[in-house]
């Protein structure tokens, strides 16, 4: 753990039209750590995740105040290019969503869009490197030009991770990345998260308490749009300080 601040969320309020979704969120996310966001459905954890790469910009009725700082810079200032931001802050979704293209083209998509490769060779090596980092290369190296959608669910999810890695992000957001996967595919993703955190800062939304406990260094518990408690995962799961956190993680009626 580096103990270096990567993302700082300050007094963040988010509204969908009249309805307030997040209330005065303050949270620090450390570099090269895995931070889990947990909480019941509708508590705002996915909304918070989307604030970290301005995915909420795509929703007309969504407004916000407060600050999200990455490496000390406010990501919501007008001069910030959201497309560039999203290459720095990659995202992996609940349902694997490979493009209807070949495995190769899925991974090459980002580097092509951002003009990152000067030659075919360079692009090839970017694709191979990303697939390797995502723990998928060995399984697909003989069929790189087959459709990504033909892979199994777990492989598709790792393909999406490879696609996110291809544009050299610093932060990876994962929104319930394993909820559609079987236990073996889940274990592979969790092992991958363990590997990836050496290089990347990871924020993961998960409904699985056990997954949060297994993969994350720190955990933040949210309830009805508020951040109730955050801290080291070991402490949150062994001895939460807040009644609401305890009720949720131990499966009690809140």
């Amino acid at each position: 753990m580096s103990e270096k601040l990567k993302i700082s969320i300050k007094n963040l309020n988010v509204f969908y039209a009249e309805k307030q979704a997040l209330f005065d969120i303050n949270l620090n996310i450390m570099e090269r750590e895995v931070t889990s966001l947990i909480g019941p459905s509708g508590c705002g954890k996915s909304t918070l995740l989307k604030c970290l790469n301005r995915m909420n910009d795509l929703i007309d009725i969504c407004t916000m105040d407060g600050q999200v700082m990455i490496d000390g810079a406010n990501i919501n200032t007008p001069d910030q290019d959201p497309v560039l931001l999203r290459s720095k802050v990659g995202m992996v979704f609940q349902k694997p969503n490979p493009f209807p293209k070949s495995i190769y083209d899925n991974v090459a998509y980002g580097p092509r869009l951002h003009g990152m490769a000067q030659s075919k060779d360079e692009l090839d090596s970017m694709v191979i490197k990303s697939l390797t980092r995502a723990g998928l290369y060995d399984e697909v190296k003989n069929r790189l030009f087959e459709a990504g959608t033909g892979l199994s669910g777990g492989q598709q999810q790792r393909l999406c991770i490879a696609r996110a890695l291809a544009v050299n992000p610093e932060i990876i957001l994962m929104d319930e990345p394993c909820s559609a996967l079987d236990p073996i595919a889940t274990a592979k993703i969790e092992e991958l998260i363990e590997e990836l955190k050496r290089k990347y800062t990871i924020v993961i939304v998960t409904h699985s308490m056990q997954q949060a406990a297994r993969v994350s260094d720190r955990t933040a518990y949210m309830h009805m749009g508020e951040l109730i408690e955050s801290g080291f995962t070991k402490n949150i799961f062994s001895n939460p300080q807040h009644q609401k956190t305890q009720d949720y993680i131990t499966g009690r009626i809140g």
Partner: protein
Amino acid sequence: MSEYKDHIVKSFDDDIENIKQLTTQMATLVEEQFKLLYHVIDTASPATIEDILDNEPRLDQYDAEIRDAVITIITLRAPIAIDLRASLTALRISTDLERLGDYAKSIAMRVAALETIPDTNIKNDILRLLTLVQTQMKDVIDAYLSKDIKKAEIVRKNDLMIDEKYNLVYDVIVDQIKDKVPKLKLLTYTKLLFAIKTLERAGDHICNIAEEIHFIVTGEDISTTKKPSQSIEKSLEGINK
């Protein structure tokens, strides 16, 4: 955090409750053993010793049942936070209870071997020491049932009373050995020394249970941190006795 709401999955509550029930039943049986022990010391009744021996296997059975219930709950429910602490400490508490039951039996056997305690004053002193242990036992069960860390703290503090009483009776018995006891009676008095030392140890195990209760409720382990302060002289005195 003082509120303990029900689990959404009701059978989880049943499993946790089952562990609590077994532990309480085991503790109540230990309490009964001490009550019988009182009777043995007071009246030297052989029938009462039989009762103590008869209860012994039931204590072992509770110990095994608690272990089984805890392993099941950890395997099937993957308890965390307070549920995990309540499950794990049940194992440790049942170990303490098993020990306490053992002590009650061994003291009863020792005293029974004497036929009668030669000195009424010493007998009454031992009974008073035993009464202190019984009170502590009752209080720790109360604290466990109500998950009350204040009550548990009182039990921890009151252990000093047992220690003091033990030291007092120890001195009385040693004085007797030194001054008045004929050689033939030496073995009797030595047995009494063992008996009171065992009662003092019983107090320590009750204290352990009180510490476990604190851990269940707060998650804080005080077994190594918050021993009542003791001078070196006092500690040495304890070791010498």
